[in-house]
């Protein structure tokens, strides 16, 4: 790891001020992706501003049909939240299968979304739930937030403070993990809103990061069934290909996982 300076912020104002004073600062959530990346010398921020101790950014609230998850809420906290389990158990299920227990104890929803790893789980949920990403500057719709692999709409000095969404009528997430890394090789989140509209988001498989599958959305809006989802075409041309699997296999996985996500959603 290259040299860096660690700061611990106690408020968003302080965090923004600290990053303003840094040459090439980065906000630090749980660090479960950033620290390994720095260890491999693939990232070299001059300063790390730890935002995990900012009280206001932590915790899950469910208010009527609105769910708000503070950005520093860990995956373990999301997975174990009873209110959320009632409002949208699929998000608990997703969080409970990110990484391993030690990663879940540290990793945060804000960090995961800000990093936008193409094989991370949360982007699928955020996009499928049509969530709003609340930051220190504005509120960004999920559809406008993710901008390809590791790219987001966030500005350098902008901190995600929370993610909020309307609890869906039904939702489910199914993933097929990469056997080595256990990141998603294909993860599909399906959500049916109260008005019957459907959103389907796919992570892990696409060559340009998380994406929505409009064919599945239309099919599921008409027929909420596993067969309707998995019967849709998935273009292998847009899929990742690597030593673990060719594109056509990933395309197949997207269909299969979509069907299983619908089954889990009930």
């Amino acid at each position: 790891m290259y040299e860096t300076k660690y700061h611990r912020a106690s408020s968003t104002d302080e965090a923004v001020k600290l990053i303003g004073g840094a040459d090439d600062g980065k906000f630090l959530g749980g660090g479960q992706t950033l620290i390994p990346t720095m260890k491999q010398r693939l990232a070299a921020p001059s300063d790390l501003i730890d935002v995990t101790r900012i009280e206001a950014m932590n915790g899950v609230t469910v208010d009527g049909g609105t769910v708000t998850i503070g950005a520093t809420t860990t995956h373990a906290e999301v997975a174990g939240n009873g209110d959320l389990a009632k409002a949208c158990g699929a998000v608990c299920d997703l969080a409970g299968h990110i990484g391993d227990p030690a990663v879940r104890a540290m990793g945060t929803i804000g960090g995961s979304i800000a990093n936008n790893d193409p094989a991370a789980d949360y982007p699928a949920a955020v996009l499928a739930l049509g969530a709003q990403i609340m930051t220190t500057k504005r509120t960004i719709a999920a559809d406008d937030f993710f901008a390809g692999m590791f790219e987001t709409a966030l500005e350098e000095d902008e901190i995600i403070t929370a993610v909020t969404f309307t609890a869906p009528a039904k939702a489910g997430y199914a993933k097929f993990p990469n056997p080595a890394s256990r990141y998603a090789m294909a993860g599909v989140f399906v959500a049916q809103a109260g008005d019957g509209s459907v959103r389907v988001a796919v992570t892990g498989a696409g060559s340009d990061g998380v994406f929505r599958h409009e064919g599945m959305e239309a099919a599921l809006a008409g027929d909420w069934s596993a067969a309707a989802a998995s019967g849709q075409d998935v273009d292998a041309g847009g899929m990742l290909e690597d030593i673990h699997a060719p594109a056509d296999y990933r395309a197949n996985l997207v269909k299969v996982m979509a069907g299983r996500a619908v089954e889990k959603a009930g």
Partner: protein
Amino acid sequence: MATVSMTVNGKEVSADVEDRTLLVHYLRENLHLTGTHVGCDTSQCGACVVHVDGKAVKSCTMLAAQAAGSDVTTIEGLANGGDLHPVQAAFKENHGLQCGFCTPGMIMTAVDMINRHGGKNLDEATIRAELEGNLCRCTGYHNIVRSIEAAAKAMG
């Protein structure tokens, strides 16, 4: 360089380290607690698992500075004097280790697992799933699972 202080195995400790120092190196090199091991670079093997404020974390994926002010327990702090922790005892009794390199991380993960699930709710499938972040190359996990089952039973 900054002074990083925390409580490790019940003792107040302090050391001047670079900000980039990982918790595992703080433990191994500054405190000479070499029971916590480094087996990979990518946060997968779990040989470095310790408890920070009661939660099992990978000390190779955390800066020492992130743990400043925290309460840290390592494998060296698990036994109560001469009395082994029930998980330690179960690993010995059930041959849950061979070369011993992954063992500290395995034991710290197992303790955390039993704490979170309660001894009565741990079936084999859950134990295996909970071990996702800990690699062992010697045992095939068979006797690690037996050890954790036995410890969970003993801890009720």
